[in-house]
């Protein structure tokens, strides 16, 4: 649009003189055509007068049934004179009572086969006009200029290798850099960036924001929008492990006709009524949509992620509880082997995180592996099965008895699978837990049963390790959701236990490393690098303990002998802390820091977060009104090879020296700065005081009222107080 030019001497005098054509061109108003309810039906049989009435009746009946009510005299079939006979022209106009019926007619009747040679073609009247008015000349689409994308992993190039986090408070979403004990450095913020919450993609490339119309991914140094996915009412999302695909779920079935005209509409009629959509994050294209499978009568709470991804992203699968597991291939989105795997009663499944192509010499399976379990039915025992994909070959099974529930827990490399089996005694009066540990890192996959006498309320593998931690309880209050009179549930007395794979004896088995009794913890958070663990007491109203454990704390040199005998000697509770109102615990991706947050979504007061180091030392704390969410930005796998990492580890001293010097310099500078500002403040204050005191004294002297001292020092009155106390009283009768 050309820039508006003003001639101050020659303003138009009346409104009519103003030339509005440019504005009208730029903002054309849609004319109300009123033809929305009109459709044209083509390929109607050509009939002569004698059959015309019959055909009209047939058509009316057909159309009314398939689409909706037609206006009175709404069906008009033009005729022409041919060889002296009046014959119909082979098409007719239908005027419906409303536009929805017209829409339905196009949807239902277009392509309808009336008889062998007549297939109806139904079009909107306005469309016909539109298409006939189209230019027949082929115009080559303009090639869009290639725009270089921003470096999506720019945050990894930070010179100090710091980590970022996203914080959501009130209506603001902000990105910060962690600066340990100092106020975090602000990177970027936006008000109303999201409507519900935010989520990072698993490798940290994208920040996902949720909106009424869909979701958007953001990233790069400028935090621009990278791609947008239209999915009205989207509530939950899930990325595939390498961020290639995105699964979104909305509680509203897709309704193509309700997507406002003019906005981007990725859906076709095939997607009508579906609630789950799979997208390609790179192109933003819709790959396939799925309906929600109703298994029971009542709509159950949906379990998320609904589609679970294999680590290579080649396959993804969905459970139809009690019936089957549907395994799909990506990116073709077709079922593997064209059919689902029917498994009677199947209750849950999990993919092994092991990538068969990773070159891990402890992984023997040459394909993806998933584990599922089926509960007891009649005489059939409960069973845990490990299956290969795509061959669908059963690799290993294990039968179980008296089972209440199972939880499948893969170790992060897929070397082990622990099945937490909640069992009941024969009388069904008490429950206890067994751990069935499948060792997939051995060729024959031995299974070991570890009997835990108490109920296990939390289980977690050490990432990339072969140890695990559990929280057990024998508290009778377990499972009591609320005390009498609506009191908050009692705090369970729990124990935190660590187990390791004992190779020293003839029978290789998991044995306890160390158990810590008399705890209240109910959640486990391993450091992503292993070794360190935080056990937290969450969802309680009175206890907010955080316990920091170190599993490999080297004992002092003089105590090394004892350590050799006691396997658990290196396991230590190094710090017990408290964060009042804590609701969330998050390790940073490097395993050096932990952030505990108190979110307004779960707790009523004291919102904010604390930053701890892995030893449980409080580095920074901030109270933030209306604090909602804080998430560390994940990091992708390191690009260094094993050898390179080894080299770094070997020369760690040299590297750390450099970093320590840098830290020290920064620290010194910060301290110096702080001291300087403090000095300045103090100086300013006393200068002001001196001036003011002088002024006040002068003013007082003027009116002859000298200042009175606050308390008349020197005239202090000393009050002596005698206290008599009867120490003992004996009565003697004096003769």
């Amino acid at each position, binding site marked *: 649009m050309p820039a508006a030019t003003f001639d101050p001497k020659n303003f138009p005098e009346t409104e009519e003189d103003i030339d509005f054509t440019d504005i009208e061109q730029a903002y054309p108003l849609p004319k109300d055509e009123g033809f929305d309810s009109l459709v044209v039906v083509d390929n109607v049989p050509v009939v002569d007068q004698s059959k015309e009435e019959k055909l009209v009746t047939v058509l009316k009946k057909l159309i009314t049934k398939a689409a909706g009510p037609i206006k009175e005299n709404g069906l008009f079939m033009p005729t022409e004179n041919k060889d002296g006979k009046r014959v119909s022209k082979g098409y007719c106009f239908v005027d419906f009572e409303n536009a929805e019926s017209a829409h339905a007619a196009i949807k239902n009747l277009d392509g309808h086969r009336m008889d062998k040679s007549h297939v109806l073609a139904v079009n909107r009247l306005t469309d016909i006009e539109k298409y006939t008015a189209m230019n027949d000349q082929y115009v080559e689409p303009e090639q869009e200029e290639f725009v270089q994308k921003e470096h999506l992993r720019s945050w990894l190039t930070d010179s100090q290798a710091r980590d970022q986090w996203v914080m959501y408070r009130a209506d603001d979403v902000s990105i910060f850099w962690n600066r340990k004990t100092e106020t975090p450095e602000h990177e970027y913020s936006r008000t109303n960036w999201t409507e519900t919450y935010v989520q990072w993609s698993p490798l940290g490339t994208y920040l996902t924001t949720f909106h009424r119309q869909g979701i958007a991914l953001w990233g790069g140094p400028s935090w621009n929008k990278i791609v947008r996915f239209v999915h009205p009412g989207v509530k939950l999302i899930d990325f595939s492990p390498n961020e290639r695909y995105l699964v979104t779920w909305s509680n509203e079935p897709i309704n193509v006709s309700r997507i406002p005209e003019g906005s981007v509409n990725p859906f076709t009629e095939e997607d009508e009524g579906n609630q789950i959509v799979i997208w390609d994050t790179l192109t933003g294209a819709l790959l396939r949509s799925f309906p929600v499978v109703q298994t029971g009568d009542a709509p159950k709470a949906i379990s998320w992620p609904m589609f679970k991804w294999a680590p290579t992203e080649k396959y993804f699968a969905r459970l139809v509880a009690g019936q089957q597991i549907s395994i799909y291939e990506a990116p073709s989105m077709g079922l593997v082997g064209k059919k689902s795997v029917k498994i009677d009663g199947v209750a849950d499944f999990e993919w092994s995180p092991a990538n068969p192509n990773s070159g891990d010499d402890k992984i023997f399976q040459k394909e993806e592996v998933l584990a599922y379990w089926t509960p007891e039915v009649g005489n059939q025992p409960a069973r845990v099965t490990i299956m290969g994909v795509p061959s669908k070959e059963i690799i290993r099974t294990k039968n179980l008895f008296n089972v209440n529930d199972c939880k499948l827990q893969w170790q992060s490399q897929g070397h082990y699978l622990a099945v937490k089996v909640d069992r009941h005694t024969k009388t069904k009066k008490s429950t206890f837990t067994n751990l069935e540990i499948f060792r997939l890192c051995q060729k024959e996959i031995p299974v070991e049963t570890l009997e835990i006498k108490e109920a296990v309320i939390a289980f977690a593998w050490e990432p990339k390790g072969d140890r695990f931690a559990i929280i057990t309880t024998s508290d009778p209050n377990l499972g009591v959701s609320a005390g009498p009179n609506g009191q908050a549930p009692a705090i369970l007395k729990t124990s935190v236990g660590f187990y390791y794979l004992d190779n020293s004896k003839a029978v290789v088995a998991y044995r306890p490393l160390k158990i810590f009794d008399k705890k209240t913890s109910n959640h486990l958070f391993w450091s992503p690098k292993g070794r360190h663990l935080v056990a937290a007491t969450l969802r309680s109203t*009175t206890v907010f303990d955080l316990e920091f454990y170190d599993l490999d704390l080297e004992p002092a040199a003089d105590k090394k002998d004892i350590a050799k005998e006691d396997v658990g000697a290196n396991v230590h509770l190094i710090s017990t802390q408290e964060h*009042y*109102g804590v609701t969330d615990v998050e390790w940073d991706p490097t395993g050096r820091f932990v952030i505990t947050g108190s979110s307004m979504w779960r707790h*009523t*007061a*004291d919102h904010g977060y604390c930053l701890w180091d892995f030893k449980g030392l409080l580095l920074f704390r901030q*109270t933030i009104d209306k604090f909602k969410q804080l998430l560390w930005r994940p990091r992708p796998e390191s690009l260094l090879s094993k050898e390179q990492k080894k080299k770094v580890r070997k020369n760690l001293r040299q590297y750390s020296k450099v970093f320590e010097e840098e830290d020290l310099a920064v620290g010194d500078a910060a301290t110096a700065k702080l*001291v300087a500002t*403090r*000095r300045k*403040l*103090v100086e300013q*204050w006393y200068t*002001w005081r001196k001036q*003011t*005191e002088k*002024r*006040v004294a002068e*003013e*007082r002297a003027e*009116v002859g*009222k000298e*200042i*009175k001292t*606050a*308390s*008349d020092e020197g005239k202090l009155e000393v009050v002596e107080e005698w206290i008599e106390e009867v120490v003992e009283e004996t009565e003697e009768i004096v003769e």
Partner: protein
Amino acid sequence: MRPILLQGHTRSLTQIKYNREGDLLFSVSKDKIVNVWYSHNGERLGSYSGHQGAVWTVDVNSTSTMAITGSADNTAMLWNVQTGKCLKTWEFKTAVKRVEFNEDDDMALCVTEERMGYPGTVTVISINPDLEAAQSDEPVATIVNDGGPKAVVAGWTYLNKFIICGHVDGSITQWDWKANEKLNTIKPHSESLTDIQFSTDRSYFITSSKDKSAKIFDTITLDELKKYETDTPLNSASITPKFQEFVIVGGGQDAMNVTTTSARAGKFECRFWHKILEEECGRVRGHFGPINTIAVHPDGKGFSSGGEDGYVRVHTFDSDYFKFKSDH
């Protein structure tokens, strides 16, 4: 050191005040009672009875002969400190929320509530320092903030030059009270003021507000000198006169919400802030309700706090307090 607990009130405290020497502590409460205590041992010297409603405020003159109180029974009363005799009762149209003697002890200001069609006022009454003399009924001056928000607290500047008023909307006004003229208005707080206390020489003052902050201002220019931002609504703020450059602030969650949370969540602590550096230095716990009023001993060796829980806690500073030195 363990504080002395003064258990002489059955309802929440509204104001406490030391006399000039600091040996006496006056406390008033919603239970209609005015008590006076020996500050060094917590022994009660006596009480002044006569008010028919909650007592909102108290002040004592510099020679500790007279005390004035203001109450919800629409009166201000003048008392003989020593005998407990009521020397004079001033009737007002509405409740008296704040009283203060001027530095010459010959006048006192009374802040009255805006209610039942009566505007809120700051009324200056003259006081005859002679205990035997009759007191005048007629006010010396009446300040009305016409149409503006009502005053909730007020105080005298040095040499009785001005009256500083704190208002319900968070604004502060400075008045030439003799000419009944508003000289200056600022709005440093976003919510109602709750307390105003002056430095010993009355050249600066501290305000506390429901907006969770306390601020220090110059009495003449009304320049904002310092601010202290906390995480809870504040009810009182006080300046330590000696030894340390501190301010003590206190408050807590609104009284009406107190029962819904634990004592810790209510933040019923006295917080010590470094006056110049604007950094929090420490907290003193103890009350199990919001803190309504704080007063520092004039010799700077201790402080007292009165809470919604009905207790006055009299603290004497430990030796560590006097040794404290911030790095600068």
